[in-house]
């Protein structure tokens, strides 16, 4: 069964019938099995599901970090599927931003340099007003000159968020951004991702297995065994938790 969700006319990213298989023969694992999903522009979407359900794989495919075995992926109006390294690099420079679970920053650079790194690499101009807005939103104004080793995990992750935003990409992808953080720091980061969608209209896609984290999102897409099985809009933590329990039971 294939469930296609999201019918908004304005999509920031789109997967159409994406299948991804790891390995071959006996050992083949179907990580994604005909997934179609629209990521709505200007909204905060969470991808949830039990461990091994294919969340990360879906995100990697959407972001052009991984290629698909069948189906197509679009970011903005650009077709990602089939792009070569140069095209993918251009895509990463202009259309997507990333926040990883860990190891997000270059230890040799200051917070400010880390934030501006994508622009420096791409040889793009810095929009100072936007930079200031982002920095103030993440609350790092007084930490700009610090090196990553001088920052807490939460602060580092906020620097990573600011870096993802500073280039005004079509989509910011975050894979378990709070996975390594305590709940307070996690709440700060999640709050920031939420605000960037609400206040700046930034499209954000976040992978998580934490119901509380998912409740910050405008919309939650549930994955199980490489398929999209459910969707919640404006979820509460309880609703997400319920759905997860239901899923675990249903799948097992």
């Amino acid at each position, binding site marked *: 069964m294939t469930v296609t969700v999201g019918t908004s006319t304005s999509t920031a990213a789109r997967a159409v019938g994406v299948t991804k298989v790891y390995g071959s023969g006996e050992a083949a694992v179907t990580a994604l099995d005909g997934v179609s999903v629209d990521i709505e522009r200007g909204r905060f979407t969470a991808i949830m599901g039990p461990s091994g359900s294919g969340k*990360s794989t879906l995100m*990697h495919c959407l972001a052009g*970090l*991984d290629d698909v075995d069948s189906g197509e992926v679009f970011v903005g109006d650009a077709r990602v599927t089939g792009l070569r*390294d*140069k095209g993918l*690099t*251009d895509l*990463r*420079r*202009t259309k997507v*931003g*990333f926040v*990883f679970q860990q*190891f*997000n920053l*270059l*230890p*040799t*650079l200051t917070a400010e340099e880390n934030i501006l*790194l*994508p622009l*420096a*690499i*791409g*040889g793009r101009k810095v929009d100072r007003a936007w930079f200031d807005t982002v920095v103030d939103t993440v609350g790092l104004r007084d930490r700009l000159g610090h090196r990553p*080793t001088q920052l807490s995990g939460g602060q580092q992750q906020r620097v990573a968020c600011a*870096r993802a935003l500073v280039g005004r990409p079509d989509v910011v992808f975050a894979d378990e951004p709070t996975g390594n953080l305590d709940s307070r720091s996690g709440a700060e980061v999640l709050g920031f991702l939420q605000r960037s969608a609400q206040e700046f209209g930034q499209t954000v896609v976040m992978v998580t297995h934490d119901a509380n984290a998912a409740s910050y999102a405008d919309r939650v897409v549930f994955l199980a065994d490489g398929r999209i099985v459910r969707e919640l809009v404006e979820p509460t933590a309880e609703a997400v938790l319920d759905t997860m329990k239901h899923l675990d039971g249903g799948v097992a």
Partner: protein
Amino acid sequence: MFRATLKSLMARKLRLLLSGLSVVLGVMFVSGSFVLTDTLDRSFDSLFSSVYTGVDAQVTTKPKVQGGDGDPESSAAALPASVLETVRGVDGVRAVVGDVVGPARAIGKNGKVLTTSGAPRLGDAWAEDLSGQRVLREGRAPEGDREVVLGGFLAKSGGFAVGDEVAVLTAAPKQTYEVVGVFGYQGGRDSLGGEMSISFSPATAHRVLLGGPDTYTSVTVQAADGVPQDVVRDRVAAAIGADYQVKTGTELAKAQTDSIGEGLKFFNYILLGFAGIALFVGAFIIFNTFSIIVAQRTKELALMRAMGASRRQMMVSVVLEALVIGVVASVVGLGAGVGVGALLARLFATFGGGSLQLASIGLPAAAVVSSFAVGILVTMAASVFPAVRASRIAPVAAMREAATPDRPLTKPTVAGAALSATGGTLLGIGLANGVLWMVFSGILVAFLGVALLTPLISKPVVAVIGGLLSWSTPGTLGRRNSARNPRRTAITAAALMVGIALITGVSIVLTSATASITKVADSQISADLIISGEEGATFEPAVLDRVRSTPGVESAFGFYSDYAAVDGDRMHLQAVTDFPAMQRLFGLRATAGSFADVTGRTVAMAEETAKAKNLGVGSTVTVQLAKGEQQTYSVAVIYAKNGVMDGVQLSAAAAADFSSAELTDAFAKVAAGTPVADVQHRVEPLFADNPEVSVQDRSAFVRQQAAQLDTVLLMVQILLALAILIAVLGVVNTLALSVVERTRELGMLRAIGMRRAQVMRMIIVESVVISVFGALLGLLVGSGLGVATVRALRDQGITELGFPWARMGTYLAVAAVIGVVAAILPAIRAARLNVLNAISYE
């Protein structure tokens, strides 16, 4: 434990390969040197035993000047024919041949004298050959005074065939002969050992080689069957008396082999010295590799500690890994060394020694022992510090997030300063007193000291070098990466420093020597034309008279050179044709007496020599020349030595008792207002018969001297290239390990939009920064070494200090290129990283 070590080794093949390779190259150098010299040694052994086949004893005159190196060309007077008759009558002698041998050089069809690479160019009399080895291949024996038979090697080298004309230089003036035959040796050989030989008819040989009939160079004796060599030797010796010496064929072969063996041993020491340098550099690489690995594996090692592994086990695991690398590298290096040694021996036999018959390639025990000893010791020694560090990792480090923070640099800096000072002092004392081992160990210790100091200086220096390269974001990132682990960068750079410092030091000494020669030529030699022969070529005194009477020549003088015993001390001295002319043309200053007084039985003596012998004007010395009896001379003038004249000089009359009655050098001053080139054109034809003698103006003379030094520099550069190659491996290794270590970081950079080309540029900048830093250190340390050596050699005539700026610039540029080359593989590896794998890499 051993299993775990092996597994960890196999899991890191690249590391094994690169760090092992540095030892392999060093060991290869060591075993290659031994194999080469052993093979050559045995080849010469069999060469000389075949040269002396059929010679049971040989009689020569006792050399009047003792202590020479047995150089046959300069030795001893000829034997009278009467000796031949006496020997013939000795009981137990079957056959006797009077040898007539002397230098004879053929002029090739291009008008240039044909040369060997070290083997003699000889003429002899075509006579009965007791060894039975010579084979007349074509034509017939020479007759009369216009015919020769050529050795096969000479005939081939010069392209001569029977019926051709050949011009030959001997003790007599140049003469042209007809080639009537070509000979070779048993076994189809063209020569015994790359020598060029010309055989004349006996009468001609006497005339052109020895200057007259009835004398012989030596007398070769063959014993009757059953009479041992030493018995014949003793009987002959008893019969002919004390003026002559008799040696058995075995003794002669051994003496020749020994003297070649001495040379080979020296050669071997030089090669081993360079091998030592290569291994020293290799030790840096091993040390660095293990340090990086221990740092990268901190968590893993801490985990093992947490699970109950002891400190000792931690240490053993690292040292064991080093042992395995050392053993494997030694085996591979030994094998490669045999190959290299065999190859070099073949090259030597083909290009160096004419047609030297190579002995089979052997594996001398010394090669095996030293390869293993050196390979394993170096590897283990270099791993000790990292092993100790591994053992000190606290179990709690397993739980910590980041790797251990940078340790303070205080300890290495203090140790480095102490070592540098010690090394510098040793070097200073060694240079001042000419103690070689002190010089070498001083340099080594100083290198270690500087290497320990490098982390401290790396920060500011790397910032400056990097600043020049960081015009783009990848450049900035690369520069920061190179400043990230000061120790790692420093050791990698220090490995490169060693080679570049040595090359720079040698280059400075040679540049200073050239500058000194130029200075001497410009300030002391006021002669405009310098006439000298290469490879001991000489010219007739009569030619000097013609030079003197050439229009435009204001004055000219020349000298004869030979070894002599002065008050029993063997020294090289000259007999000068015109002392006042020499005084003027060489700018000599008499401190006592007058140059005009050096006539008959008097000498001129440099002040230093006189002081050493405690002599003054009027004092007497005994002089034994190559011929004649010992004579008493008195000192007529004492002069301040300069860059061109030193020691003792006799008047021209004494040259009659020199081994050769021909001049070795001459100098001419051109009359004011006459262009030197014009006079040179008029003088040159006087030496047309003697292509080995050149007429040069002052600047050409200086250039020629400098060219010889350039050859030395070239050899040193070639031999040090291996040390630099190993240092390059070190740069590759460090970068490769860094790329592995920063996999995730690289993945992240790619994820946020860095292009492959940018990743490569980043790694290349890091590499160039490291190598340029190493080169700068090398230039600096090398300058120190060079200046110290030049200072110490002031008394040896190196009075000027010259810096080879262009060459030093080249070394720096080469280092930058090396940086780029070393970065290629790691950069490709980094650029090829799969972004997804990199960021999810654990």
